[in-house]
Every structure is written in structure tokens, then in C-alpha cells.
């Protein structure tokens, strides 16, 4: 069962990126060695930063920051 935080991150990313969102979360978590189903308060910052990094080049600083802040607020 995914953690509440994982569920919310998936939901934010799905809203912003549609079906791509899920893959972005999975790939970033994989690179960080984090199970995407087990994102918690401790590793949330790392995941948020990684997502922001990849989103900057894809959809611009503005959107990347918006997503980043939304994820960070899940703490």
C-alpha cells in the first residue's frame, strides 16, 4: 500500500502531467533509491527536489516551482 504522501504526490503529478506524471515520480524515486510507494516525510524533500530538477527543463521554472512547493507542503 502506498503511503499517503506517495498517493498525494502521484495525484499532483497526474493532475499536472497526466499519464506522464506517474513515470516521472517512479523514475526520480528509482534514481534516488527510494521506493515510490514509500515516500515519507523523511525522504520527501529529496523527491521534491528531484522532481523539480527534471520539470524545470521540461515545463519551465514556474511550473516546476509550483509543483515543488505543493509537494513540499505535504510534510
Amino acid at each position, binding site marked *: 500500500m502506498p503511503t499517503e504522501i506517495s498517493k498525494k504526490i502521484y495525484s499532483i503529478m497526474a493532475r499536472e*502531467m*497526466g*499519464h*506522464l506524471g506517474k*513515470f*516521472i515520480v517512479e*523514475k526520480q524515486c528509482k534514481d534516488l533509491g527510494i521506493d515510490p510507494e514509500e515516500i515519507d516525510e523523511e525522504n520527501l524533500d529529496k523527491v521534491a527536489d528531484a522532481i523539480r530538477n*527534471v520539470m524545470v*527543463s*521540461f*515545463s*519551465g521554472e514556474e*511550473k516546476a516551482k509550483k509543483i515543488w512547493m505543493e509537494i513540499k507542503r505535504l510534510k
Partner: protein
Amino acid sequence: MTYKIERYLHFPYLSIYGTELRDGLNRTVIAEFHANLSEVSDSHGISIWFPTYGVSEEYREIEAMKESGWALFLQDYYISAPTGRPDLNVSLVENDMDGDGANESFTVHALGSGEMGIEVLSGRDIVKRANGYGDMDMVFSGNSGYYSVLVCSYDNGNISNFKVIEGIVETFSFISGTVTDSSGRPIDATLVFHFPSGNITIRAKGGRYVLAVKEPTTAPYGSEVPVDVEYQGIVMRKNITLSSRYINEDFKINYGNPAIFYLIAAFLIITSFFGAVFLYDRDEKRKRMERLKSKPTIRKVKKIKRVIKVKTFIDREKELTELNTALRRAEDGVGSVIFLTGEDGVGKKTLMNRFRKEANISFISYDATGSEKRPYEAIIKVLEALNSLGLVSIDIKYLYSLPSKEQAFSEAFNAFAEASSKSPLIIYLSSSQWLDKPSIEFLEYLARGIDETRIVLVISAPQEELEDVGGKPHPLNELLISLMMEGKVRMIKLERFDMDKTRAMLSAILDSEIPDDILEKIYEETQGLPILVEEIANSIRRSGRKIYEMGPEDVEVAKSVREMMGKRLEKLDEEERRLVEWAAILGLKFSSDIIEALSGMGERMHVVLHRLIEDKILVEKEDILKFDHPQLRKIVCEWIGERAKEMHEKAAELVESMHPDDVFSLAYHFCYADKRDKCLKYALKAAKRAEESYSPKDAVDYYKMAEKSADEASLPEIYLSLARNFKKLMEIEKAEEYAKKAAEYGGNTGNAAHLLLGHLYLESSRWEEALREYEKAVNSSDAEQVIDAYRGMGKVYWRLGQHEKAAEYIEKAIDLAENSKNVDMLGISTIDLANVYSDWGKYEKAKELYKYAIKYLESVSNISEISRAYNNLGEVYRYMGDLDNAIEAYKKCVEYAESTKDINLIGYGLENLGTVHVYKGRFEEAMDYLSKAYRIFSKTGDKYMISGIYMAYGIMYGMQRKWEKAEENFKKSVELLEEIGIKYDLGITLYEYGKMLKEKGDERSEEVLRRALKIFKEIKADRHIKNVESLLSEGGSEEKNGG
């Protein structure tokens, strides 16, 4: 950036350096202005990174540049803005810059020391050049355009510095002024300048506006340009004349004064030319509405404003800026990919139309429908368009004739690059969710090399339609994810309109201000989706009712596009319905000749067709008809219901007589008509054609169509073909399932299926099952199959390290090839045997066999296999420590591969050349070869080969005792091999990694080597087990001697 530097190197003195620099640039991933990087203290000039692998964001890559020696050449050179280095003083003096666009003249004054040169360039062409000493002037005259000036000085024949100034001769007209209301108060109005090349919209902030108009792209000098000034729903039109370079034009808009409204309205009725001025005052709106109702002449005003009515493009400035940025990058020689997304009806096409008009350069678009009749349809259509524009000359049939997909991709890529070589090119692929997989594969190839072209590739699709397919990501999603991770794609997402933008759109279509209550009603129902807003506005317009005569309850709002589409269709008469039904049967796109014949309406069909186009049911483009919206076709298909079968039959018969070669359409219609014989016949033909054009996915679809109509006799072949195509798609489980079905039928098809199963198991390291299947396949009466089966068995034993047995089976294959005089197979099997001896350590024997193989293959001109033999011969020399001969053999491999344009083999040869140069300690050459190989494999997406390149870099940095970089590369190699699951090579990389750590004195070496050992034991790679064990027990010697 890289292009820019290259472009400036035209001086004869620079030719030698230029060649070297170009080679260097081939290895360069990024050259970057420091000015953009706040963390770099010196914000002048550029850094050029010479990375050892792929794109990286780490600054320490600059270290690699230092090592390479390039720094010596580059450190003195700055590319700077005009205020750059003080030791080379350049100034420009305008002589005749009157802005008329003709013979603009200026003097370049360069103050330096010693020998100097000045060069003026237009794009990449040198238009004027002068050499001199110290303080020199050069006068340049030219018509308006985009120029750059390069100035350099020499020191003993070498360039000591150079400087570039860009865009200095561009001529502009400046139009400026103020916008005020009737009382003279400045207002924030919007101004739309209607230039022939497209519209430019600007805001007059605080009443002031300034527009710099680039000549001659916007309007001819001296011409008149209409300007619409809009404020609070009031629009005023005025023509201005581009009479001089500096134009001052003030606008006064009659806002808030009803008396003037009537005067101007009357004026407009008389003139009928200059557009209308509407008064809008919230406080007085209702009162005015009443007055308007009682004054019918006002309706004439509405007729006047046709110009405004068709303009429904509403503020997408941010998105347009993004697209224009991509275009500017393309102008500088760096193409890019943009993913344009947003739900259906949000305005993606409208945005692109606006971009096209503003960009005014080559623009090719393709709208995918999902009912394309052949693989790569989108790519072929774009290439055909490029041909017809004269941008390239490429024979599509030639592409299909190439022996491999990679070669065809490489040639097609070159055509795209060539088409954009002179000026940027925009390629817009809309509804890309419907693109076939082969086309997406090519797009990936194109995207990976797009920064070498001047193409802006816009791939558009609604995100919500990129759902997973059969548990796998949508192919377009896969492409986007992969490009996104490499930073090679940028997304533009269009959102729905807010209330203000909805009002602006309604107002533009209805030529009227919109009462708040009606706006709120429409916004509530449409939620700002532009297509719905537009549809409602148009339906009001078509009804002939006036918006100010309506209340919210009168606004008929459909709940969805589908309902709206349904409403459009409801209005059709009997004839129109009949024609539209035939259109639906033919697919989303079709040609008019077929529908004319099917409808049986004769000449009258054109009249009806014209009505359908007018009613926006169908659209026509270049003789191809299509539905205006896919939903329209869907609804019509539902009407047709069970009659579809009969209609497909009629369509099939007609297509058969008119276009007998269109096997894809024939398969589609005959199968839907349930005509089993012909469905089988054409589906098989279509599948074979798909196979010929490297489209296993389409081949699978058609073979599955055929399967449904097949009799017992045809089933085994169909199953076997499905298995082969699933194997190509790497869908191993399905390949196995169908191969097993085919095998059950026995006979030669059954034997071929056993052979295929053998190959499947061999590739999955399932040795025993592979041997069992190969043993069954040797019973075939087809000699070539038997040879292949013996080769397979040989390969199993080879991989198991049982060299004697491996050689025994491959020799059987060789004997059989000799007896059946199959020289091709003789050559190929001899390479296999040589591989075994090479792995066995019997290098002399292996060398001899490779040479025999080359002779056999030369006699049948099998160039690809000759190239492979040379590559493997190079390997033997390498193992023997004879690196010079290894290099010669690898070079031969590349030479042969180049003659057949087999880019994979070219890549293999280059990678091996790189590795050998690593062992020789010639690191600069090694990096050159490896980076060339990397460029090839990153385009083809060959992770296996990329992992090998990383390993070679790891070894190289290890030899240089650059431990950190070595480890980084080994880790990347390991990660890739783990991802693709190739154990043998994973073991080798871990072994090399562990060896490096051991040399470094890092205690983690034991852990890494034990991982390697575990893998080699799993796959029973005895020789490598020995190597690892001897390294683990300290002082171990290596069997392989790489130099």
C-alpha cells in the same frame, strides 16, 4: 552555441584550427555563456565542455577539457557582447542607416595590434572580408538583413583573440505614440498591427507604446498597415503609413462618451471600411442596449466588422513566446522538440496557426488520425512535403530499399537536417496520440539528434489520451519520458480560458460586447474550453439573434463536444447524410475519387460535398478529405450500425478495382465486411508490406486480422510470422506462445518454429531449452534451417564455455553449408567458429578462420558480414596484445560498414577503436572514437553499446588514476546493463570496475568482484570465473591482455 563558434571560423589562418575545432565540437556537448550562471564569478565568455560521456550537468567536466589540451587553444578566445575584451577595440559607425532597407552602410573600426582581419557574415556566408594591420577600417554596404561581424587579430600567424558582434545591420522602423481616451487620459489599450506577414499584438502600458518593426519581413517600406486599438471591448481601426524609420502615431479612443458613439457609428455606416468603434460603459450598458434595440441601422455596423469577426485568437502570449524562443534557437543552429499539450478543443491548432503566421518560415504539419494505411505515414508525408518544397530531394522508395531500419533512419534524419540547413523549419505533428509506433520510433531518432539541425519539432497530443496500452506506457509517453530525462523536450501546456479571455473570444466572434449575465452562463457551461465557447458563439451568430436581445436562458449550451457535433449532424439532409456515411466507412481520411464512386451521386456529389465542407462536417486539404472532428465520424458510425458490413463490402470491391495496390485499405474493408478469403489474402499482403518497412507492430495487427479469417492450412505460417514479429518487438512471452502454436503443426513450419524457440531461449540464457529446440529443428528438410540450428547449438555450448562441443556443432554447420554450396552461410558459420576459438584463447586459429570467412563473404559480396568479421578479427588482435593490427582491422570494419551505411556496425567499429586507443594510452584519440560511437548509439538508443562506452571510459580514467570519474562511468555502465539484463557483460563490467577499485586500494573492490564472480558462476563463464578468482586471491594474472 557550438554552431556559432564554428560559423565564425572562416579565415584562412583559422583553417587548421577550424578543422581541429570542428572535431572537438563533435565531442562537445555543451558550450555555455557564463553570463547566465550566477554561481560563476567571471561572467564573461564561454566554457566549452568536453565531456567524457553524454550530457552532464557537472562543472568538473571542464577538467576533461583541460586534460584534452583544447584549453590551450580556447582559453584566449572570448565570444562576447560588443562590450567585451578591451584589448581588441571594435566600433561601428553608421554611414547611411536611414532604415529604407537598401544599401545601408556602416564602417567597422577595429583597433588592435599587429595583423588583423574583419569579416562580415550573413548567416554562414561571408559577404565581405578584409585583412590589415593595427588600426583598420572596413566599410560595408548591404541591404537590410541579419549580419554579424567578426574581428580578430593574429599573433605570429595564430589567432590571439576574436570578437563577434551580431545583428547590427538589421533595420527597424520604430512606431511609437500614446493611446488616450476621449478626455485625453492615457489608457492601457491593446494594439493589433495587421502586417502582411502576420499580426503583432502589443500593450500600451500607461498609454505609451513602442513597436520596433523588423524590415522587410513585416511590411514593405512605404506601405499602409491597419491597426486595431482595443480598450474595454471598444475597437478602433486606423491605417498608418510606414513613411520613415521613426513614426509617431497617437490614438484617441472614444471611451465613455455616448454622443460620439452615434457620430462614429454613422460614420462607419457611410465608410464601411475602417471597422467600427463601439462604446462600452458598464454603467450605461443597459440603457444603451435599449437604445440600440430601437435603432435598426446599428445592425449595419455589425456587418461592417468582418475583419474582427474571424479573429478568434485570444491571448496566448506566454506560449507564443516559448515557441518563438525555440525558433530563435533553431535560427542559431540548435533545433529542439516541443511537446504541445492540452485537452481537445483547448486551442493547440489555433496557437500553431498563429505561430506559423508570425514565424513566416517553412512550416510542415501533419495531423495523425490513427487510420493511416501504412507504417511511417506521418514521416513519409513530411518528407514528401519537404521534397515538394524543394528543400530536399529524397526518394522514399530508396529509404524502403535500405537493408536495415537504422540505415533508413539515418538517411531520413540526414534529409531532415538538410531541409533545415538553410533556414529553420517547423514541423508540427498534431493528434500525435494516433501516430503509429514506427513513426514514433523515428521521432525518437530525430529528437536525439535534433540539436544538430535547425528544426523546431512540435509534437502535439492531449495528455489524457496518452493512456497505457496493454499495461505498457503509451509509445508517445515512452518517447517523452526518455527525452525528458535527457532534457531534450520542453512542454507547453494550454489551459482553458478564464472569464476575461472567454469574454474576449465571444466578443470577437459576435462583434459585440457581452452582457455579464450571458457571459457567466456561457462560462459556467463551457468552463472556458475554447472550442465550446467558439461553438456557442458561432451557433448564436448562425441563429441570427442578437446577443443583447437574449437572456441567459436563451443560450443553448450543449453539454459536450459530442452533443455539439451531433447537433451539426442533425441538420443534414438526406443526400448529405448518405455521403457522410460513406465518408465514415472510408475512415477519418479519404480521397474524393473513392467517395464519388461509392455515393453513386455522380457530379451532384461535389455539390453535396461542398455543403458538408461549408457546414464544417468535412474538411478538404490537398485532395484529401477528412472529418472536421473525430467525434463526428464516431457518431456517424453509430448511425450506420449493422449496415456497416454491407458498406465495407461495397467499399472493398471499389477500392479493389480502383486502387488494387492499396492492400492496407483492402485488408481493412474486406475484414470488416467479413469476406474471409479476401480478408486473409489482403491482410497477409499488408502484413508482409509492413514487415518490409520494418514495422513489426503493424505486421502483428495485420497478421492478427488474417488469423481471424485463416483456415487450418494457413494458420501455422501466420503463427510463425506473429512469433517472429513479437520477437522483433521484444515481446518474448507472446513470441514464445505463438512459436509453440506453430511448432505443434510439425513440418517445415514446425521446424522453423523450433528454430525460433531455440533463438528465443538462447537470448534468454535458457540453455537447456534452447538445445532441446535446436535438436528438433535439425530435422528440417530445409538445409539453411539445419545450418542455423547447428550454429545455435554451437552458440549455446560456446556461451557455456564448452568450446570443444561448440566447435563440433559449428563445424557440422560449416560442412552442411559446404555441401549445399551455400557460401553465405559458409562465411557466417566460419565467423561463428572463429568466435569460439577466439574465446577459447586459440588466437592463431581464430585469426586464420576470420580470414577464411572474409574470403568466402567477399566472393558473395556480403559486406555487412565482412565488416563483422573484421571487427571480430580486431578483437583477436586486441586479445593478443597486437593493438596496431587490431586498429587496422577495426578501421576496415568501419570502412566496410560505411559503404553499406550500416550505422550499427560503424558504431561497433568506432567503439572498439576507442577501447583499443584507451589501452594504448592514446586518450585523446580514444575519446574522439568513443564520443563518435556514443553519438551513434544515443541516437539509436542502444543501451547495450552505450554501456560498453561507459565501461571504456571507466577503464581510461582508471588508467589515468582519476578514480572518481572512473567510478562514475563504471556505475553508469552497470546501471544500464542491469536495466537491460545482460548478465555476461554485467559480469565483465563489474570485473573491470572491481579491478580499478583494487588498484585504487579501495576495499569495496572485493564486494564488486564477488558480484562479478556470482554472475559468471550463474552463466557458467569458466574463463572469467578463473580471472575473477585469481584477482580476488591477490597477485592474479589476467588471461586477456588488453595492452
